[in-house]
């Protein structure tokens, strides 16, 4: 019974294929089985995005003691749909001086990487669109191209604010890509494979990587850099409303604007999914079906992102860069060392040693980065 629920999506796909198989040749069946997965993902992505926007508005509303959207349908559940209709009916404005091709290309291409990265995420047991042996590499390679399209859009708008936003996006991504990749290397080191399925399988039972010292640090590093990588608050400098209007999507309206939002939310989802996969054990978990575990963990991470958004003010550019280069990067290197020691040594010693190394280094980085405010001078003789 539990097994059936666990594999329910696989079964559903199999049933569709079984119905079609008597009528179609074999090569068509292969195409259709691929096609089903693609259609599912292409529908799943936008739906996730729509309801994440609703969830975010509700969450942040409650954090500010408001209701959030509650007019459209019960609990505002139809709000995303009506927003979608609104977006479709809006006028599509292209600035006169904009480069029409780049302006058009930006929003369309920006969602392609966001959809592509879904193909290596294991949503449940046996529920991975394609188990690439270089899954993690594929994820990073594809996800980082989205910055190029953001910059295309910014450049094509021929607006100074857009261009500033685009440049910020590139700068931010260059500095956060490094700690992000380094924070995931310890897990690859321990597992010895790039495949996402292998990583999840290595965390069998409750041996999630987050319960080891290096795993905890890696998880925090990866999550923070992930938040920065998908341009979410408090790292949303590329679209800082109070400084540069809306950053790279200043000149976009209607559905093109919605596409940027879609890309942003789908990226937030896929980064949370990858953090779940690498450090929180993916779909591993007792009793409940595997996909439910996966979505529950991802949901918790996304809620934390929204919690951040409801709490933190936007960082300054220098703070953002300083945080990456002086805080996260050294910690990522030390974490790599700790993980290497952890693999090399045997049980009680490895935990203790890596724990000690990490605690000491976190403290050292903390002390080294502390703001040194000069002591207030007291003028002793000035008034006498």
């Amino acid at each position, binding site marked *: 019974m539990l097994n059936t629920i666990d594999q329910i999506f696989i079964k559903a796909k199999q049933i569709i294929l079984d119905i079609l198989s008597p009528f179609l040749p074999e090569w068509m069946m292969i195409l259709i089985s691929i096609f089903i997965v693609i259609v599912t993902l292409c529908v799943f992505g936008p739906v996730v995005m729509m309801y994440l926007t609703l969830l975010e508005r509700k969450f942040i509303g*409650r*954090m500010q003691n408001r*209701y959030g959207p509650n007019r459209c349908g019960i609990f505002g559940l139809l709000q995303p749909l009506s927003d979608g209709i609104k977006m479709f009916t809006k006028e599509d404005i292209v600035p006169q001086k904009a480069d029409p091709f780049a302006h058009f290309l930006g929003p369309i291409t920006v969602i392609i990487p966001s959809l592509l990265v879904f193909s290596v995420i294991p949503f449940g047991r046996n529920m991975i669109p394609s188990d690439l042996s270089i899954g993690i590499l594929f994820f990073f390679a594809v996800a980082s191209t989205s910055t190029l399209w953001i910059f295309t859009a910014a450049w094509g708008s021929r607006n100074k604010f857009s261009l500033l936003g685009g440049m910020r996006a590139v700068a931010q991504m260059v500095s956060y890509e490094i700690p992000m990749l380094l924070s995931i290397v310890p897990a690859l080191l321990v597992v010895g494979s790039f495949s996402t399925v292998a990583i999840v399988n290595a965390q069998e039972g409750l041996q999630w990587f987050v319960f080891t010292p290096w795993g905890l640090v890696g998880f925090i590093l990866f999550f923070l850099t992930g938040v920065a990588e998908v341009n979410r608050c408090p790292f949303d400098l590329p679209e800082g409303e109070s400084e540069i209007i809306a950053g790279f999507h200043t000149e976009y309206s209607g559905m093109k604007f919605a596409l940027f939002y879609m890309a942003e939310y789908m990226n937030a989802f896929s980064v949370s999914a990858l953090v779940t996969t690498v450090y929180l054990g993916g779909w591993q978990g007792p009793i409940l079906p595997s996909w439910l575990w996966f979505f529950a963990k991802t949901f918790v991470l996304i809620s934390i992102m929204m*919690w951040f958004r*409801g*709490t*933190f003010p936007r960082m300054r550019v220098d703070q953002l860069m300083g945080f990456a280069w002086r805080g996260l990067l050294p910690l990522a290197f030390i974490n790599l060392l700790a993980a290497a020691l952890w693999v090399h040594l045997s049980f009680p010693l490895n935990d203790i040693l890596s724990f000690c190394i990490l605690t000491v280094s976190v403290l050292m980085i*903390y002390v080294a980065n502390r703001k040194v405010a000069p002591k207030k001078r007291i003028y002793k003789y000035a008034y006498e």
Partner: protein
Amino acid sequence: MYGLGVLKGLWVTIKNFTLSYFTRKRLTTVQYPEERITLSEHARTFPILVYDESPDKLRCVACEICAKECPPKCISIVRAQDEAGKPLKQPKFFDIDYSVCMNCGICEEVCPFDSIYMDRQFELSAYERSEEFLYTKDRLAKSAEYFSKIRPETAKKVEEKRKAKEK
């Protein structure tokens, strides 16, 4: 301690988030069409003309003081005349353009005959601007009971004043 503010901020927001589900007092939003706040005595929107017994017996005597005082000049009054051409003590036309009126209440203050008063009806949206917001005499006319219902204290004072004058 450096960095502690981050945790404090997170604590504040999560507290707001959870408590807003349990403490209704935290949610200050009034769900407008279903819930309404009670308006205070002197809440005002647009002027109305008060009559005593029947709509043709307006208190207004067409003295045009309010029309002269009105800052955006949105009141226009034409005095009625009898057959012989003698002016009567009542308006023939009394129009207020609500789309121009700025809700200042000066007309109410200057009227020496306690005729024009500010209403509190604010749901006046219409599909057309020039016709539907031009309030003519018959649309402006409201009974004295209506007035005493919306602004009981002011109405009581006005009644006392008028009775004292009659004696």
